Protein backbone atom coordinates (compact mmCIF):
# COMPACT_ATOMS: atom_id res chain seq x y z
CA UNK A 1 0.00 0.00 0.00
CA UNK A 2 1.14 3.51 -0.68
CA UNK A 3 2.56 5.59 2.13
CA UNK A 4 0.42 8.69 2.64
CA UNK A 5 2.62 10.51 5.10
CA UNK A 6 3.02 14.19 4.22
CA UNK A 7 3.89 17.40 6.04
CA UNK A 8 1.26 19.63 7.60
CA UNK A 9 1.76 22.16 4.88
CA UNK A 10 1.34 19.55 2.14
CA UNK A 11 -1.85 18.36 3.83
CA UNK A 12 -3.21 21.91 4.03
CA UNK A 13 -2.56 22.09 0.30
CA UNK A 14 -5.52 19.74 -0.18
CA UNK A 15 -7.87 22.48 1.05
CA UNK A 16 -9.28 24.77 -1.62
CA UNK A 17 -10.91 28.14 -1.02
CA UNK A 18 -14.65 27.64 -0.60
CA UNK A 19 -14.31 24.09 0.72
CA UNK A 20 -16.42 22.65 3.50
CA UNK A 21 -13.90 21.45 6.03
CA UNK A 22 -14.98 19.13 8.84
CA UNK A 23 -12.88 19.23 12.00
CA UNK A 24 -12.95 16.24 14.33
CA UNK A 25 -13.12 16.02 18.10
CA UNK A 26 -15.39 18.00 20.40
CA UNK A 27 -15.01 21.66 21.49
CA UNK A 28 -11.82 21.37 23.58
CA UNK A 29 -11.03 17.71 23.11
CA UNK A 30 -8.83 16.17 20.42
CA UNK A 31 -9.11 19.11 18.02
CA UNK A 32 -6.82 19.33 14.99
CA UNK A 33 -5.13 22.46 16.34
CA UNK A 34 -1.79 22.02 14.57
CA UNK A 35 -3.67 21.67 11.31
CA UNK A 36 -5.73 24.79 12.04
CA UNK A 37 -2.51 26.72 12.67
CA UNK A 38 -1.12 25.69 9.30
CA UNK A 39 -4.45 26.41 7.64
CA UNK A 40 -4.41 29.98 8.95
CA UNK A 41 -0.83 30.38 7.73
CA UNK A 42 -1.88 29.16 4.29
CA UNK A 43 -4.34 32.05 3.96
CA UNK A 44 -6.97 29.85 2.36
CA UNK A 45 -10.24 31.77 2.79
CA UNK A 46 -13.95 31.36 2.33
CA UNK A 47 -14.13 28.07 4.15
CA UNK A 48 -17.26 26.47 5.52
CA UNK A 49 -16.34 25.14 8.94
CA UNK A 50 -18.21 21.97 9.94
CA UNK A 51 -17.89 20.63 13.47
CA UNK A 52 -19.97 18.65 15.93
CA UNK A 53 -19.09 21.32 18.49
CA UNK A 54 -16.72 24.10 17.49
CA UNK A 55 -14.23 25.36 20.06
CA UNK A 56 -10.74 26.77 20.48
CA UNK A 57 -9.19 26.28 17.04
CA UNK A 58 -12.47 27.07 15.33
CA UNK A 59 -12.56 30.43 17.09
CA UNK A 60 -9.02 31.14 15.92
CA UNK A 61 -9.98 30.24 12.36
CA UNK A 62 -12.95 32.58 12.56
CA UNK A 63 -10.86 35.34 14.14
CA UNK A 64 -8.17 34.95 11.49
CA UNK A 65 -10.73 35.37 8.73
CA UNK A 66 -10.38 31.90 7.21
CA UNK A 67 -14.04 31.08 7.65
CA UNK A 68 -17.07 32.49 5.88
CA UNK A 69 -19.68 29.93 6.93
CA UNK A 70 -20.17 27.89 10.09
CA UNK A 71 -22.10 24.62 10.44
CA UNK A 72 -22.23 23.32 13.98
CA UNK A 73 -24.64 22.72 16.83
CA UNK A 74 -22.49 24.55 19.37
CA UNK A 75 -19.77 27.15 19.06
CA UNK A 76 -18.27 28.06 22.39
CA UNK A 77 -15.60 27.32 24.92
CA UNK A 78 -17.67 25.28 27.38
CA UNK A 79 -16.85 26.28 30.95
CA UNK A 80 -14.57 29.03 29.59
CA UNK A 81 -17.60 30.84 28.22
CA UNK A 82 -18.54 32.18 24.82
CA UNK A 83 -16.11 31.78 21.92
CA UNK A 84 -14.92 35.38 21.70
CA UNK A 85 -14.29 35.78 17.97
CA UNK A 86 -17.34 33.79 16.93
CA UNK A 87 -19.43 35.95 19.24
CA UNK A 88 -17.86 39.13 17.93
CA UNK A 89 -18.11 38.27 14.25
CA UNK A 90 -21.44 36.42 14.36
CA UNK A 91 -23.21 39.08 12.33
CA UNK A 92 -20.71 38.79 9.49
CA UNK A 93 -20.60 35.01 9.38
CA UNK A 94 -23.10 32.89 7.56
CA UNK A 95 -24.34 30.53 10.25
CA UNK A 96 -26.04 27.34 9.12
CA UNK A 97 -27.89 26.12 12.20
CA UNK A 98 -27.32 22.48 13.00
CA UNK A 99 -28.10 20.16 15.88
CA UNK A 100 -26.63 16.86 16.96
CA UNK A 101 -29.25 15.03 14.89
CA UNK A 102 -28.93 17.15 11.75
CA UNK A 103 -25.15 16.70 11.74
CA UNK A 104 -25.16 13.01 12.61
CA UNK A 105 -27.95 12.15 10.17
CA UNK A 106 -26.59 14.42 7.47
CA UNK A 107 -23.33 12.49 7.54
CA UNK A 108 -25.25 9.22 7.82
CA UNK A 109 -27.24 10.06 4.70
CA UNK A 110 -23.97 10.61 2.83
CA UNK A 111 -22.58 7.35 4.21
CA UNK A 112 -25.75 5.51 3.19
CA UNK A 113 -25.58 6.92 -0.31
CA UNK A 114 -28.96 8.61 -0.14
CA UNK A 115 -30.16 12.17 -0.07
CA UNK A 116 -31.68 12.38 3.40
CA UNK A 117 -32.39 10.77 6.72
CA UNK A 118 -35.66 11.25 8.57
CA UNK A 119 -35.91 12.15 12.26
CA UNK A 120 -38.27 13.29 14.92
CA UNK A 121 -36.50 16.59 15.55
CA UNK A 122 -36.62 20.37 15.05
CA UNK A 123 -40.40 20.63 14.80
CA UNK A 124 -41.98 23.34 16.89
CA UNK A 125 -38.69 25.29 16.84
CA UNK A 126 -37.53 28.19 14.71
CA UNK A 127 -34.74 26.13 13.18
CA UNK A 128 -36.88 25.19 10.21
CA UNK A 129 -37.54 28.90 9.59
CA UNK A 130 -33.87 29.78 9.37
CA UNK A 131 -33.06 26.60 7.43
CA UNK A 132 -35.63 26.79 4.62
CA UNK A 133 -33.50 24.29 2.71
CA UNK A 134 -34.45 21.59 5.20
CA UNK A 135 -37.62 19.80 4.11
CA UNK A 136 -40.12 17.63 5.89
CA UNK A 137 -41.46 14.29 4.75
CA UNK A 138 -44.55 12.25 5.51
CA UNK A 139 -44.13 8.74 6.93
CA UNK A 140 -45.82 6.27 4.58
CA UNK A 141 -46.75 4.09 7.55
CA UNK A 142 -47.73 6.37 10.43
CA UNK A 143 -48.65 9.49 8.49
CA UNK A 144 -46.49 11.50 10.85
CA UNK A 145 -44.41 14.34 9.50
CA UNK A 146 -40.68 14.04 10.09
CA UNK A 147 -37.83 16.32 9.21
CA UNK A 148 -35.75 15.02 6.29
CA UNK A 149 -32.18 16.02 7.06
CA UNK A 150 -30.13 16.49 3.89
CA UNK A 151 -26.90 14.62 3.26
CA UNK A 152 -23.70 16.36 4.31
CA UNK A 153 -20.60 15.56 2.29
CA UNK A 154 -17.61 17.60 3.49
CA UNK A 155 -14.90 18.39 0.97
CA UNK A 156 -12.18 17.70 3.52
CA UNK A 157 -12.27 16.07 6.95
CA UNK A 158 -9.41 16.57 9.38
CA UNK A 159 -9.21 14.19 12.30
CA UNK A 160 -6.59 14.21 15.01
CA UNK A 161 -5.94 10.70 16.32
CA UNK A 162 -3.76 9.01 18.88
CA UNK A 163 -2.23 6.46 16.50
CA UNK A 164 -2.18 5.83 12.78
CA UNK A 165 -0.16 3.80 10.37
CA UNK A 166 1.33 5.30 7.22
CA UNK A 167 -1.69 4.33 5.12
CA UNK A 168 -4.24 6.02 7.39
CA UNK A 169 -5.56 3.11 9.41
CA UNK A 170 -6.03 4.93 12.70
CA UNK A 171 -7.51 4.31 16.10
CA UNK A 172 -9.38 6.63 18.45
CA UNK A 173 -9.26 6.32 22.20
CA UNK A 174 -12.29 7.59 24.07
CA UNK A 175 -14.44 10.40 22.70
CA UNK A 176 -15.47 9.36 19.21
CA UNK A 177 -17.49 12.52 18.50
CA UNK A 178 -18.41 12.31 14.79
CA UNK A 179 -14.88 11.63 13.64
CA UNK A 180 -15.37 8.21 12.13
CA UNK A 181 -18.36 9.47 10.18
CA UNK A 182 -16.60 12.63 8.98
CA UNK A 183 -13.58 10.63 7.88
CA UNK A 184 -15.76 8.26 5.87
CA UNK A 185 -18.12 10.85 4.41
CA UNK A 186 -15.59 13.45 3.25
CA UNK A 187 -14.30 13.60 -0.31
CA UNK A 188 -10.79 13.86 1.14
CA UNK A 189 -9.65 12.88 4.60
CA UNK A 190 -6.57 14.07 6.44
CA UNK A 191 -5.35 12.33 9.58
CA UNK A 192 -3.06 14.13 11.99
CA UNK A 193 -1.64 11.77 14.55
CA UNK A 194 0.26 11.79 17.81
CA UNK A 195 2.14 8.68 16.78
CA UNK A 196 2.92 6.87 13.56
CA UNK A 197 2.97 3.14 14.17
CA UNK A 198 3.76 0.09 12.09
CA UNK A 199 0.41 -1.45 12.88
CA UNK A 200 -2.42 -0.11 15.07
CA UNK A 201 -3.99 -2.25 17.77
CA UNK A 202 -7.67 -2.37 18.63
CA UNK A 203 -10.85 -1.31 16.82
CA UNK A 204 -9.86 0.90 13.88
CA UNK A 205 -11.59 4.25 13.33
CA UNK A 206 -10.65 4.93 9.72
CA UNK A 207 -10.27 2.91 6.56
CA UNK A 208 -7.16 3.51 4.48
CA UNK A 209 -9.17 3.48 1.26
CA UNK A 210 -10.87 6.63 2.55
CA UNK A 211 -7.78 8.46 3.80
CA UNK A 212 -5.72 10.76 1.58
CA UNK A 213 -3.01 12.13 3.85
CA UNK A 214 -1.41 11.26 7.16
CA UNK A 215 0.54 13.85 9.14
CA UNK A 216 2.70 13.12 12.15
CA UNK A 217 1.73 15.88 14.58
CA UNK A 218 2.76 15.15 18.15
CA UNK A 219 0.93 17.47 20.56
CA UNK A 220 -1.15 18.33 17.50
CA UNK A 221 -4.26 18.93 19.58
CA UNK A 222 -2.61 21.19 22.17
CA UNK A 223 -3.96 23.13 24.06
CA UNK A 224 -7.07 20.95 23.62
CA UNK A 225 -6.76 17.48 25.04
CA UNK A 226 -5.62 14.26 23.45
CA UNK A 227 -6.78 11.58 25.85
CA UNK A 228 -4.96 9.69 27.27
CA UNK A 229 -1.72 11.42 26.20
CA UNK A 230 -2.36 14.90 27.51
CA UNK A 231 -5.19 16.75 29.12
CA UNK A 232 -6.85 20.03 28.26
CA UNK A 233 -4.37 22.88 28.91
CA UNK A 234 -6.87 25.01 30.77
CA UNK A 235 -4.51 27.89 31.46
CA UNK A 236 -3.76 28.31 27.76
CA UNK A 237 -7.47 28.41 26.87
CA UNK A 238 -8.05 30.93 29.63
CA UNK A 239 -5.12 33.01 28.37
CA UNK A 240 -6.87 33.08 25.00
CA UNK A 241 -10.14 34.23 26.52
CA UNK A 242 -8.36 36.86 28.57
CA UNK A 243 -6.41 38.13 25.58
CA UNK A 244 -9.61 38.48 23.57
CA UNK A 245 -11.36 40.24 26.44
CA UNK A 246 -8.51 42.78 26.39
CA UNK A 247 -9.01 43.19 22.64
CA UNK A 248 -5.72 41.44 21.91
CA UNK A 249 -6.82 38.72 19.53
CA UNK A 250 -4.28 39.73 16.88
CA UNK A 251 -1.42 39.55 19.35
CA UNK A 252 -2.60 36.15 20.54
CA UNK A 253 -2.93 34.95 16.95
CA UNK A 254 0.61 36.06 16.15
CA UNK A 255 1.89 34.13 19.16
CA UNK A 256 -0.23 31.15 18.15
CA UNK A 257 1.12 31.16 14.58
CA UNK A 258 4.63 31.49 15.91
CA UNK A 259 4.07 28.57 18.22
CA UNK A 260 5.33 25.92 15.83
CA UNK A 261 3.83 22.47 15.96
CA UNK A 262 4.07 22.09 19.70
CA UNK A 263 2.93 24.35 22.46
CA UNK A 264 4.02 23.59 25.98
CA UNK A 265 3.62 25.29 29.31
Amino acid sequence: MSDKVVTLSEAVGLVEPGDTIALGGMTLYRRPVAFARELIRSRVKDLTLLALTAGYESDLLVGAGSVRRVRTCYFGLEIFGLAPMFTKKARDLEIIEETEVSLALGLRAALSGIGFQPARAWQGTDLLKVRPDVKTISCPYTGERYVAFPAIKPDVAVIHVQESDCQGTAILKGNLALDREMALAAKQTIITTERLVEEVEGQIATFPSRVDAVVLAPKGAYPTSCYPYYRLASQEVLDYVDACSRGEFEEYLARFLDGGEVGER
Partner: protein
Amino acid sequence: MGVRLGSADRFTIDELIVTCISRQAKNSDLMAQGIATPLVVAGYILAKLTHAPDLIFAVAIGGCITNSWAPLSISRAEEANLERPLYIFSFDEAAGTLMFTIQPKEFFRPAQVDPRGDFNNVVLGDYYAPKLRLPGCGGIADVTNYSPRVYLYVPRHSRAVFVERLDFVSGVGVLEEEERKELSILSPGPRYLVTNLGTFDFEGGRMRLLSYHPGVRVERIQKKTGFPLAMAPDLHETPPPSAEEVMLLREEIDPLGIRELERLSGGRRRAKLREIIEREAEGF
Protein backbone atom coordinates in the same frame (compact mmCIF):
# COMPACT_ATOMS: atom_id res chain seq x y z
CA MET B 1 -21.88 33.99 45.68
CA GLY B 2 -19.04 32.29 47.53
CA VAL B 3 -19.25 29.28 49.77
CA ARG B 4 -20.14 30.47 53.25
CA LEU B 5 -18.05 28.51 55.63
CA GLY B 6 -19.58 27.58 58.94
CA SER B 7 -22.07 25.16 60.35
CA ALA B 8 -23.54 22.73 57.83
CA ASP B 9 -27.12 23.96 58.22
CA ARG B 10 -25.97 27.00 56.27
CA PHE B 11 -25.83 26.61 52.50
CA THR B 12 -25.34 28.70 49.41
CA ILE B 13 -27.88 29.10 46.65
CA ASP B 14 -25.64 27.03 44.36
CA GLU B 15 -25.84 24.23 46.86
CA LEU B 16 -29.60 24.49 47.05
CA ILE B 17 -29.89 24.33 43.24
CA VAL B 18 -27.59 21.30 43.19
CA THR B 19 -29.71 19.65 45.85
CA CYS B 20 -32.91 20.29 43.88
CA ILE B 21 -31.29 18.75 40.79
CA SER B 22 -30.14 15.80 42.86
CA ARG B 23 -33.67 15.15 44.10
CA GLN B 24 -34.98 14.76 40.57
CA ALA B 25 -32.75 11.72 40.02
CA LYS B 26 -34.31 8.42 41.04
CA ASN B 27 -32.24 5.34 41.65
CA SER B 28 -31.23 3.47 38.46
CA ASP B 29 -32.01 6.52 36.33
CA LEU B 30 -29.78 7.32 33.41
CA MET B 31 -28.76 10.98 33.66
CA ALA B 32 -27.37 12.90 30.68
CA GLN B 33 -24.72 15.57 31.19
CA GLY B 34 -24.20 18.27 28.61
CA ILE B 35 -21.17 20.53 28.49
CA ALA B 36 -20.40 23.41 30.87
CA THR B 37 -23.00 22.37 33.41
CA PRO B 38 -21.19 21.91 36.74
CA LEU B 39 -24.33 22.47 38.80
CA VAL B 40 -25.92 19.55 37.00
CA VAL B 41 -22.90 17.28 37.29
CA ALA B 42 -22.69 18.08 41.00
CA GLY B 43 -26.40 17.34 41.40
CA TYR B 44 -26.12 13.96 39.71
CA ILE B 45 -23.13 12.95 41.81
CA LEU B 46 -24.88 14.12 44.95
CA ALA B 47 -27.81 11.87 44.08
CA LYS B 48 -25.48 8.93 43.50
CA LEU B 49 -23.81 9.48 46.86
CA THR B 50 -27.11 9.70 48.71
CA HIS B 51 -30.41 8.23 47.53
CA ALA B 52 -29.52 6.90 44.04
CA PRO B 53 -26.38 4.75 44.23
CA ASP B 54 -27.13 2.95 40.94
CA LEU B 55 -27.31 6.13 38.88
CA ILE B 56 -25.73 5.89 35.44
CA PHE B 57 -24.38 8.88 33.51
CA ALA B 58 -24.44 9.59 29.78
CA VAL B 59 -21.74 12.21 29.40
CA ALA B 60 -20.95 14.46 26.45
CA ILE B 61 -17.37 15.10 27.58
CA GLY B 62 -15.71 11.79 26.75
CA GLY B 63 -18.76 10.64 24.80
CA CYS B 64 -19.64 7.68 26.95
CA ILE B 65 -21.91 6.08 29.48
CA THR B 66 -20.41 5.42 32.88
CA ASN B 67 -21.46 4.62 36.40
CA SER B 68 -18.36 6.00 38.05
CA TRP B 69 -17.71 9.57 39.14
CA ALA B 70 -14.89 11.85 40.16
CA PRO B 71 -14.83 15.27 41.83
CA LEU B 72 -15.69 18.16 39.53
CA SER B 73 -12.72 19.28 37.45
CA ILE B 74 -12.04 21.49 34.47
CA SER B 75 -8.83 20.00 33.14
CA ARG B 76 -9.57 16.41 34.09
CA ALA B 77 -13.28 15.98 33.31
CA GLU B 78 -12.60 13.97 30.17
CA GLU B 79 -10.17 11.49 31.69
CA ALA B 80 -12.41 11.08 34.73
CA ASN B 81 -15.37 10.15 32.50
CA LEU B 82 -13.27 7.81 30.37
CA GLU B 83 -11.59 6.04 33.25
CA ARG B 84 -14.05 3.17 33.38
CA PRO B 85 -16.72 3.68 30.72
CA LEU B 86 -19.52 1.17 30.28
CA TYR B 87 -20.15 2.27 26.71
CA ILE B 88 -18.34 4.61 24.33
CA PHE B 89 -20.71 5.98 21.71
CA SER B 90 -20.28 7.95 18.53
CA PHE B 91 -22.67 10.86 18.16
CA ASP B 92 -24.09 9.12 15.12
CA GLU B 93 -25.37 6.39 17.39
CA ALA B 94 -26.18 8.69 20.30
CA ALA B 95 -28.20 11.18 18.28
CA GLY B 96 -29.55 8.66 15.79
CA THR B 97 -30.87 5.89 18.01
CA LEU B 98 -29.43 5.45 21.45
CA MET B 99 -30.75 8.51 23.25
CA PHE B 100 -34.25 7.97 21.92
CA THR B 101 -34.20 4.40 23.13
CA ILE B 102 -32.59 4.65 26.53
CA GLN B 103 -34.21 8.02 27.26
CA PRO B 104 -31.95 9.70 29.77
CA LYS B 105 -33.07 12.52 32.02
CA GLU B 106 -31.26 15.71 31.16
CA PHE B 107 -31.08 19.17 32.71
CA PHE B 108 -30.71 21.97 30.16
CA ARG B 109 -29.84 25.58 30.87
CA PRO B 110 -31.88 27.91 28.66
CA ALA B 111 -31.03 31.53 27.93
CA GLN B 112 -34.74 32.37 27.62
CA VAL B 113 -37.91 30.55 28.69
CA ASP B 114 -41.46 31.42 27.75
CA PRO B 115 -44.61 30.74 29.81
CA ARG B 116 -45.27 27.30 28.34
CA GLY B 117 -41.66 26.15 28.63
CA ASP B 118 -40.38 26.75 25.11
CA PHE B 119 -36.78 27.85 25.39
CA ASN B 120 -33.93 29.46 23.51
CA ASN B 121 -30.20 28.76 23.31
CA VAL B 122 -29.44 30.21 19.89
CA VAL B 123 -29.63 33.99 19.82
CA LEU B 124 -30.72 37.08 21.75
CA GLY B 125 -32.36 39.80 19.66
CA ASP B 126 -33.12 39.56 15.98
CA TYR B 127 -31.79 36.36 14.45
CA TYR B 128 -30.21 38.10 11.48
CA ALA B 129 -28.78 41.02 13.49
CA PRO B 130 -28.40 39.55 16.95
CA LYS B 131 -27.73 41.46 20.15
CA LEU B 132 -25.88 38.35 21.29
CA ARG B 133 -25.17 35.20 19.39
CA LEU B 134 -25.29 32.25 21.78
CA PRO B 135 -23.30 29.02 21.29
CA GLY B 136 -26.25 27.08 19.84
CA CYS B 137 -28.70 24.49 21.02
CA GLY B 138 -26.63 21.30 20.79
CA GLY B 139 -29.25 18.56 20.70
CA ILE B 140 -32.05 20.46 22.43
CA ALA B 141 -34.18 20.90 19.31
CA ASP B 142 -33.90 17.14 18.81
CA VAL B 143 -34.47 15.90 22.34
CA THR B 144 -37.44 18.18 23.01
CA ASN B 145 -39.23 16.56 20.08
CA TYR B 146 -39.36 13.18 21.79
CA SER B 147 -38.08 13.04 25.36
CA PRO B 148 -40.39 12.78 28.35
CA ARG B 149 -37.41 13.59 30.57
CA VAL B 150 -36.49 17.18 29.82
CA TYR B 151 -35.54 19.22 32.91
CA LEU B 152 -34.42 22.85 33.13
CA TYR B 153 -32.30 24.96 35.41
CA VAL B 154 -31.66 28.70 35.44
CA PRO B 155 -28.95 29.87 37.85
CA ARG B 156 -29.88 33.54 37.48
CA HIS B 157 -33.63 34.05 37.48
CA SER B 158 -34.53 37.33 35.79
CA ARG B 159 -37.01 39.04 33.48
CA ALA B 160 -34.35 38.75 30.77
CA VAL B 161 -34.64 34.97 30.99
CA PHE B 162 -38.35 34.49 31.62
CA VAL B 163 -39.98 36.34 28.76
CA GLU B 164 -43.45 36.37 27.27
CA ARG B 165 -42.00 35.82 23.82
CA LEU B 166 -38.70 34.19 22.90
CA ASP B 167 -36.28 35.73 20.42
CA PHE B 168 -35.81 32.24 18.98
CA VAL B 169 -37.39 28.90 19.81
CA SER B 170 -34.83 26.11 19.96
CA GLY B 171 -36.45 23.90 22.64
CA VAL B 172 -40.09 22.88 22.62
CA GLY B 173 -42.35 23.47 25.62
CA VAL B 174 -45.75 22.12 26.58
CA LEU B 175 -47.89 22.11 23.44
CA GLU B 176 -51.59 21.57 23.02
CA GLU B 177 -52.37 17.95 22.17
CA GLU B 178 -53.41 18.91 18.66
CA GLU B 179 -50.26 20.89 17.97
CA ARG B 180 -48.08 18.08 19.28
CA LYS B 181 -49.80 15.63 16.99
CA GLU B 182 -49.50 17.90 13.97
CA LEU B 183 -45.77 18.33 14.61
CA SER B 184 -45.18 14.63 15.46
CA ILE B 185 -43.84 15.67 18.84
CA LEU B 186 -43.84 13.00 21.54
CA SER B 187 -42.34 15.06 24.35
CA PRO B 188 -44.79 16.45 26.91
CA GLY B 189 -42.44 19.39 27.48
CA PRO B 190 -40.13 20.18 30.40
CA ARG B 191 -41.04 18.37 33.60
CA TYR B 192 -39.32 20.59 36.10
CA LEU B 193 -37.37 23.80 36.44
CA VAL B 194 -35.14 24.98 39.25
CA THR B 195 -33.79 28.51 39.50
CA ASN B 196 -31.98 30.46 42.19
CA LEU B 197 -35.38 31.57 43.46
CA GLY B 198 -37.63 28.53 43.40
CA THR B 199 -38.78 25.36 41.70
CA PHE B 200 -41.40 25.16 38.97
CA ASP B 201 -43.22 22.95 36.53
CA PHE B 202 -45.29 23.60 33.41
CA GLU B 203 -48.39 21.64 34.38
CA GLY B 204 -51.28 22.67 32.17
CA GLY B 205 -48.95 24.49 29.81
CA ARG B 206 -48.04 27.44 32.03
CA MET B 207 -45.04 27.94 34.26
CA ARG B 208 -46.09 27.27 37.81
CA LEU B 209 -44.31 27.92 41.08
CA LEU B 210 -43.97 24.72 43.12
CA SER B 211 -41.74 26.01 45.90
CA TYR B 212 -39.89 29.18 46.89
CA HIS B 213 -36.38 28.88 48.21
CA PRO B 214 -35.75 29.71 51.89
CA GLY B 215 -35.75 33.45 52.37
CA VAL B 216 -37.25 34.21 48.95
CA ARG B 217 -40.68 35.83 48.82
CA VAL B 218 -43.17 34.72 46.18
CA GLU B 219 -43.69 38.34 45.14
CA ARG B 220 -40.03 38.66 44.33
CA ILE B 221 -40.15 35.56 42.15
CA GLN B 222 -43.14 36.96 40.27
CA LYS B 223 -41.40 40.32 39.89
CA LYS B 224 -38.32 38.66 38.41
CA THR B 225 -40.48 36.74 35.90
CA GLY B 226 -41.64 38.49 32.72
CA PHE B 227 -45.10 36.92 32.76
CA PRO B 228 -47.68 35.87 35.35
CA LEU B 229 -46.83 32.65 37.14
CA ALA B 230 -49.33 29.99 38.12
CA MET B 231 -49.12 28.78 41.70
CA ALA B 232 -49.17 25.13 42.76
CA PRO B 233 -51.94 24.37 45.27
CA ASP B 234 -49.40 23.01 47.74
CA LEU B 235 -46.92 25.83 47.26
CA HIS B 236 -44.26 25.51 49.94
CA GLU B 237 -40.74 26.39 50.90
CA THR B 238 -38.05 24.39 49.11
CA PRO B 239 -36.60 21.87 51.58
CA PRO B 240 -32.99 22.91 52.19
CA PRO B 241 -30.02 20.60 51.67
CA SER B 242 -29.21 18.39 54.60
CA ALA B 243 -25.99 18.82 56.53
CA GLU B 244 -24.71 15.67 54.85
CA GLU B 245 -25.54 16.97 51.38
CA VAL B 246 -23.71 20.23 51.99
CA MET B 247 -20.73 18.39 53.43
CA LEU B 248 -20.58 16.00 50.47
CA LEU B 249 -20.75 18.86 48.01
CA ARG B 250 -18.04 20.92 49.65
CA GLU B 251 -15.68 18.16 50.58
CA GLU B 252 -16.20 15.29 48.14
CA ILE B 253 -17.96 16.42 45.01
CA ASP B 254 -16.75 19.92 44.29
CA PRO B 255 -13.99 21.03 46.66
CA LEU B 256 -12.78 23.59 44.09
CA GLY B 257 -16.16 25.34 43.92
CA ILE B 258 -16.53 24.90 40.14
CA ARG B 259 -20.31 24.95 40.54
CA GLU B 260 -20.12 28.65 41.44
CA LEU B 261 -18.98 29.54 37.91
CA GLU B 262 -22.51 29.18 36.58
CA ARG B 263 -23.66 32.17 38.59
CA LEU B 264 -20.77 34.45 37.68
CA SER B 265 -19.99 36.39 34.52
CA GLY B 266 -17.38 38.66 32.94
CA GLY B 267 -14.20 39.47 34.81
CA ARG B 268 -15.32 37.93 38.10
CA ARG B 269 -15.97 34.68 36.30
CA ARG B 270 -12.58 34.71 34.61
CA ALA B 271 -10.85 35.46 37.91
CA LYS B 272 -12.63 32.59 39.63
CA LEU B 273 -11.80 30.34 36.70
CA ARG B 274 -8.12 31.23 36.93
CA GLU B 275 -8.14 30.53 40.64
CA ILE B 276 -9.71 27.11 40.09
CA ILE B 277 -7.36 26.22 37.25
CA GLU B 278 -4.34 27.21 39.28
CA ARG B 279 -5.50 25.13 42.21
CA GLU B 280 -6.08 22.18 39.82
CA ALA B 281 -2.57 22.62 38.45
CA GLU B 282 -1.26 22.48 41.99
CA GLY B 283 -2.84 19.07 42.24
CA PHE B 284 -6.05 19.75 44.12
